[in-house]
């Protein structure tokens, strides 16, 4: 099989399989899941059995069903956060690159200031002040994440902004928006897409850590991070319950990264064909 006209490597194949299975699982959760997200179906931390494929959790809910439903929230929210952070990061980063001068200085220093504050602490403060609704969670992480995107977009944009074709557009009298969208963006896509994959992983790891601290997605909704936290105690009794959602996080991270690595390797090889 070929994607974007390129042959898939073995690693990319595995990555693609993992991501596809995860997405299918999330999409079809209500159909596949043997039990509801919040249904109590048996004893606390009941072991793996034919009845419960991955055992039960700290309240006796079915782990497998919760994993499927958790995939929905985790993936959807991580995706939203990444899209939002890229929209903010790319537009500000390109503006800084194309306009230069004091705009660049002001934006860059502001971003430096944001980055100087530890992300997790910053998120904790905002979430505890503003409350832990999903929209606040998404906006907070997106803004924090966009500082990293800004840096990349600015660096890539700077290399493109000095090209003669950007000057041609400027001489023609094009607006900043047009230059950013039509001249810079198409040429900056490869590294940005690669970064998108990585940021996506970081986003759901970040939600997981927030959930683990109790500030992420609130019960009874399942998400992989809070599932780890809720079941953490089982380790003391020799149970494997927290390892199951942790494995879920790990496998999706690996899958996305395999795809991203493959994409990176394509572009480190040069620009390929014109199209």
């Amino acid at each position, binding site marked *: 099989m070929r994607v974007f006209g390129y042959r898939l490597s073995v690693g990319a194949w595995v990555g693609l399989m993992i991501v596809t299975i995860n997405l299918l699982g999330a999409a079809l959760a209500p159909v596949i899941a043997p039990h509801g997200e919040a249904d109590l179906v048996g004893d606390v931390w009941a072991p793996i059995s034919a009845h419960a494929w991955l055992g039960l959790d700290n309240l006796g809910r079915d782990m497998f069903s919760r994993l499927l439903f958790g995939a929905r929230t985790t993936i959807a929210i991580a995706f939203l956060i990444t899209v939002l952070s890229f929209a903010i990061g790319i537009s500000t980063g390109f503006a800084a690159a194309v306009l230069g001068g004091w705009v660049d200085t002001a934006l860059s220093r502001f971003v430096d200031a944001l980055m100087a504050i530890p992300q997790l602490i910053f998120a904790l403060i905002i979430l505890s002040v503003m409350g832990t609704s999903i929209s606040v969670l998404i906006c907070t992480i997106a803004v924090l994440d966009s500082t990293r995107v800004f840096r990349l977009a600015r660096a890539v944009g700077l290399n493109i902004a000095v*090209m*003669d*074709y950007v*000057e*041609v557009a*400027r*001489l*023609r*009298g*094009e607006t900043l928006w047009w230059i950013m969208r*039509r*001249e810079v963006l*198409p*040429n900056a896509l490869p590294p940005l897409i690669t970064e998108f994959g990585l940021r996506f992983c970081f986003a759901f790891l970040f939600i997981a850590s927030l959930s683990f601290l109790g500030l992420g997605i609130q019960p009874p909704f399942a998400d992989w991070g809070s599932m780890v936290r809720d079941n953490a105690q089982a380790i003391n009794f020799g149970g494997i319950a927290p390892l199951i959602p942790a494995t879920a996080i790990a496998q999706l991270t690996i899958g996305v990264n395999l795809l991203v690595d493959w994409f990176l390797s394509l572009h480190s*090889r040069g*620009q*390929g*064909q*014109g*199209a």
Partner: protein
Amino acid sequence: MSEVILSMEDLRIEARSEHEAEAKTIVDKVDLRLRQGEVLGLIGESGAGKSTIGLAALGYTRTGCAIAGGKILFKGKDIRALSLDQRRRLRGRSVAYIAQSAAASFNPAKRLYQQICEGPVRHGLMGYDQARSEAVQLFRELDLPSPETFGERYPHQVSGGQLQRAMAAMAMSCKPDLLVLDEPTTALDVTTQIEVLAAIRKLIRDHRTAGLYISHDLAVVAQVANRIMVLRHGKKVEEGETDQILHHPRMDYTRALVSIREAGTGRPGGKARVEEPVLEIRRVTASYARLARVVDDITLTVRKGETVAVVGESGSGKSTLARVITGLLPREKGEILFRDASLPPALLARDRDLLRRIQLIYQMPDVALNPRQRISEVIGRPLDFYLGLNGTQARARLGELLRAVGLSEEFASRYPGELSGGQKQRVCIARALAAEPDLIICDEVTSALDPLVAEEILRLLGRLQRDNGYAYIFITHDLGTVKRIADRVAVMLKGRLIAEGPLEKVFAPPYHPYTELLLSSVPEMDTHWLDGVLAKRVKQGVSAPS
């Protein structure tokens, strides 16, 4: 007969990219033989395989290329059979390489000595102190200023011509038997080129080194080479003594290469009447960040249907003048009138119609076209943006424009990456024409192109001017081009205009001394040209400004 240093037999080099199953042959069945003290010139367009052959003499190929067949014998030993370690001992010591850009080849963080002595010391030929005194000797032979202390400097502390000579010293530091010179003077100004050329030639002759001299400029090669090999598409077109190639070329392709330089001077038919001025520059001054004036008190008039050539060396401010006219660099003093109205200094203060009327064509078509836009979008955007054309009207106009620059309509759906250098420059011209301008500024539009392609572009620009009456400002360092296309000439030196007027006047005696220096520095298709110029300069006591 002296010893054969290098011979290549039936050499074939292939390039293999990951996306294509079939390997592309970039050097095909090339035979070559070089004796001690002999210089062979390799001539050809870009992509002719001349640099690839030069590198093959060091047993090296660029990434993605491989020597697929044939023999490379260095003093009778096959280089291809050598191990990596043996090759490393060969390179630098027995075969040395001089690259086009000295600035990119020196490590800016190390003094020149450290880099020049590295070769002989690492190869175990001599100690550092001896290498250093040998280097001083080489500096002296290369006419470098204060040879005893020259090596103490860092690369950025010497001029481009001096750095290129320092690279020649580096190449000669191990007393190699063979020198590969890959366009060593191409990046230099004509006046500097002479010095470097003379120095390199003297060095090769004194040391009886064999040389492979790679260049696209036949006139330059003619000064150094005993024999010339003309290459095209990786194949040998013809090989012969330098005089034979220059004066009695056998093949059509060689004939075309030779005749460009000899093409008639002056333009057919002078202007019958004086047209109204399009652009009047009056005492304009500009600088970057208020530092030294890059454009200093320039006054220049461009009339309808007229070509004004602005000539000068790099750093003379000629491209900056273009930036001042287009508004990218606002002028600080002076006035520019465009069609009798004052031109706002800054780009943002100009309205769309004014922007439309002044168009700029760039030196490098590769970076002047967005690689992610189809040609239809590249040319279609100004049609839509300035003239509000879209749909069928725009498509019809797009077709007209493509035909006007000599491209077929199929090109509309292609990306720039699928075009050759000459075709890309044609698209850039079409993009400028799409705006229906009054004034077109051509900034070194032919410098990055091969001579035959450049010739076609010049002809195209001439035809378009006759048909549409555009005014051109033609910025170039190539005086050969100027002679053929310009009505008026402006000579710039260090930001100032030192001579301005009709071509016949500026380029005829009595010259301004600098104009004369420039003119006499343009290489001619004559093996004795360099000797003649040098002899004359010694007599007059003129030396190029370095």
